[in-house]
């Protein structure tokens, strides 16, 4: 057993974990954060993607004890008090959701990409999502969604800036 301290979705936790436990199991079984999906258990499909200290990781390939001291964002941490995160809104508006099993991972990979590059080209979007598979083959709509999310985020930023200048 290892005792680890870490943050999930801006809340701190201390838990004892078995040395063989994977991060995906810790999130799903212990914290019931079932928005993180498991598709292949070998880091191929990206359904289990979470953001760990600003970078996407496949939570099926990360041991739970490796999360000690880290800051983790799952799909459940994206929603805001006043509703959906702009990326989630963009996925809905662009029709980028089909069976939905890849969606949480896709949304989180999009967030990690847009946090670093607020204005990605379609090629950069494809590169940013290259670790996430969609078997319904909805890739074009997903790329559209990330481009739309980039626009929504910029609009939000300029709205926020004008609001601040009014204050």
């Amino acid at each position: 057993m290892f005792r680890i301290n870490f943050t999930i979705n801006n809340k701190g936790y201390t838990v004892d974990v078995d040395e063989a436990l994977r991060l995906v199991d810790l999130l799903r079984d212990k914290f019931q954060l079932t928005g993180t999906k498991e598709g292949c258990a070998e880091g191929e499909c990206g359904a289990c993607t979470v953001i760990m200290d600003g970078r996407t990781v496949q939570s099926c390939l990360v041991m739970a004890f490796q999360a000690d001291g880290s800051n983790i964002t799952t799909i459940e941490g994206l929603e805001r008090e006043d509703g959906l995160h702009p990326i989630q809104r963009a996925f809905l508006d662009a029709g980028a959701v089909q069976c939905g099993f890849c969606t949480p991972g896709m949304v989180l990979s999009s967030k990690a990409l847009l946090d670093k590059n607020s204005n990605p080209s379609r090629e950069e979007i494809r590169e940013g999502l290259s670790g996430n598979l969609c078997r319904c083959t909805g890739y074009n709509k997903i790329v559209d969604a990330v481009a739309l999310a980039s626009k929504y985020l910029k609009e939000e930023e300029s709205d926020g800036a004008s609001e601040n200048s009014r204050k």
Partner: protein
Amino acid sequence: MEPLKIVGNREIRVDGMAKVTGKAIYPQDIFLENALYGYTVRSTKVHAKIEVDIKKAEEIEGVVKILTHKDVTGMNAHGVLFKDQEVFCSQKVRRIGDPIAFVIAKSQKVAKEASKMVEIKYTELPAVFDPVEAMKEDAPIIHDTTNIRYYYKCRKGNVEEAFKKCDVIVEREYKTSMVEHAFLQTESGVSYVDKEGVINVCAATQYPHFDQLEVAEGLGVNKEQVRIINPAVGGAFGGREDITLQIHLALGAYLLKKPIRMTYSREESFYAHAKRHPIVMKYKTGADKNGKLIAMEATLIGDTGAYASWAINVMRKAGVHATGPYEIQNVAIDSYSVYTNNPYCGAMRGFGATQVPVASEQQMDIIAEKLGISPIEIRLRNCFKVGSKTATGQLLNESVPLKKCIEEVQNKLF
């Protein structure tokens, strides 16, 4: 006319909100209190008589029960068209991955470990992996009689006479490969008996009403005693039309009166469900010097593997679509579904109609090349239009905008 409310407008899909927030519930997201865990013991041989000994596995701490064919309370058979699959193999296995036993334990880890202790004595039988070989008289028989499960025959005009009039004849053989759906959400489910005595099975399926019937038959209970709950389905593409874990889970819950859950690993998912039929396609196509198709002969041999699943529908559809969307006056098509010891094949996106264009369209290209006309031109000269008759005799009397489609593509490409 008043503007339409839905058609022509962008609508947000009803399950979209749950899916972008991660709140959509797939079967593996259901945690029931005190649920036991199931694990399937599967065949490691392609074709063999079996003897199963569960004694050692039963003694392992944490194992609650191990089900075999002896525990099946109803009919030990299922299948969408023919009941040729067993809930648990009783006498022999016909492919790698055939289910033999189901270990129910207090944890996933114990269930998996105990499954390794189930002893299976295999007496191997001759096997066959090539559908053409499997059609021969002396081939190993996989089920009761012949390996030829289905034959579809289509005749139009007089092919023999028509080939004599052709200026160009192209004869080729094509093969497509077996394809796995690889839907992202592997098979998973929970089953429990509720206070009213109804056996509930919660699993992602494409066919809940038929699952209900097959579970009821497997358990030997009335259909009304079984409820199939279909939560969010993480992709299917035809791969969830056959039974996989539904009867195993239901039988366990019914016998033990305790909730049971299980999730297949990706590897087990590959073993568990049907694939796309690989098809051997022998084509002979003839045209006159203007590129007008005159005759076509096709033999399609579909490998349905160890079980039929939707083989009939798939190979019939392959046969019906064998000419491609082209008018040919003289046609002879023979399409077969054949059992082998390969993984079993069934529904997958297109149902037989996806395989034949590999052959029929390639034939068009080769004929065009031989005649020195463009691949587009030969298609325009032969494609279905309003008033065309298909090989099966169907008169196309409504919208057939194929010519327009080809021309639009041509305009965009060149």
